[in-house]
């Protein structure tokens, strides 16, 4: 076991910030290359003309999941030490619903709005500004929302723990679902993508 490196004191806080910058740059680079800085492309997800959001997100999740499982299985990563965001059932359900409406309305999510803004798009700047305002609104309303915000805490609960199935079995299931869903996504796109736009939608970065 020699990871997570920060948790075993391999480097200090300055080192952590250097890694933050480096990981952020590569993250932003791949987001832009995947077309995730473009609100038109993102919105295509919700009108089934371009499922890039789904493909990028789900293949990222599958990649990380396989990496986590195998690094842990080979003894290189101490998984119990990895920070799992705590589950709060009701606020995450409600927050998800609210977030989803804002996502299709704004056409960008918080991370991709930064990419959109830095590549010159004014709508990206407006989403960034809206996010800041939304955080302000939430914080000012916090005394009212605190009850809901703290409701139904379940701690760092994961699906294998919830259903009592070994981690590896859930990994297999997620990979299997992803592969089937990717094939389906290609078919859905062929069906809904307007013929005149197909070349344009593919034309990024080739």
């Amino acid at each position: 076991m020699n990871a997570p490196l920060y948790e075993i004191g391999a480097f200090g806080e300055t080192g952590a910030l250097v890694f933050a910058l480096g990981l952020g740059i590569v993250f932003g680079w791949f987001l832009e290359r995947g077309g995730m800085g473009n609100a038109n492309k993102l919105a295509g997800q919700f009108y089934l003309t371009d499922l890039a959001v789904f493909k990028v997100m789900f293949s990222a999740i599958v990649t990380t999941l396989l990496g986590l499982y195998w690094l842990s299985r080979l003894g290189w990563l101490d998984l119990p030490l990895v920070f799992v965001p705590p589950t709060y059932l009701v606020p995450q359900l409600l927050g998800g619903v609210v977030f989803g409406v804002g996502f299709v309305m704004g056409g960008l999510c918080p991370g991709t709005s930064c990419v959109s803004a830095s590549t010159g798009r004014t709508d990206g700047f407006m989403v960034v500004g809206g996010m800041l305002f939304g955080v302000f609104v939430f914080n000012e309303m916090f005394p009212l929302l605190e009850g809901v915000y703290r409701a139904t805490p379940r701690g760092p609960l994961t699906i294998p723990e919830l259903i009592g199935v070994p981690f590896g079995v859930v990994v297999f299931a997620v990979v299997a679902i992803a592969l089937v869903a990717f094939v389906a996504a290609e078919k859905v796109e062929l069906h809904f993508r307007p013929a005149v736009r197909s070349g344009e939608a593919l034309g990024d970065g080739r």
Partner: protein
Amino acid sequence: MNPYLAGVGIGLVLLGAFVIMGRGLGASGAFSSAAAAGMASVAPERAATLEPYAAYLGDERRGPLSDWLVIEILGVTIGGFVSAWGAGRLRRGVEKGPRVSNRARLLYAFGGGTIMGVGAKLARGCTSGQALTGGALLSVGSWIFIIAAFAAAYAASPLFRRQWT
């Protein structure tokens, strides 16, 4: 770039964050830090007493992690800029469908951002912190967030069709 390859790239970055830092990536946390810093400069007392601000005002109690997200998002903007520059996609403009004015699109963008801000605070994360990071960790709450967010976005999509198509 092939979207699956971009996804694998993002997945490896996220895996790197877990291996190096023991935690994943995020975006909305950086907005929380920015809002807290803004409030602290305008009304320091309110920022120090209202918990959602106070929790993001950096001090030694919470360690470097709130700074970590801000620097990471700074990296995202740099990385996005460099990528678009290299591919010739840097362009001033507004992304929208052909049927709406720029002004309408910008209002929608601000409104959508505001709604997402509230939702991300309530859910304790956004597409990066909950969907990607929590999703890859198989967190139950994160998968609830993913399903709720996409279901709501599809349900609301007819309201905004004019903006995009």
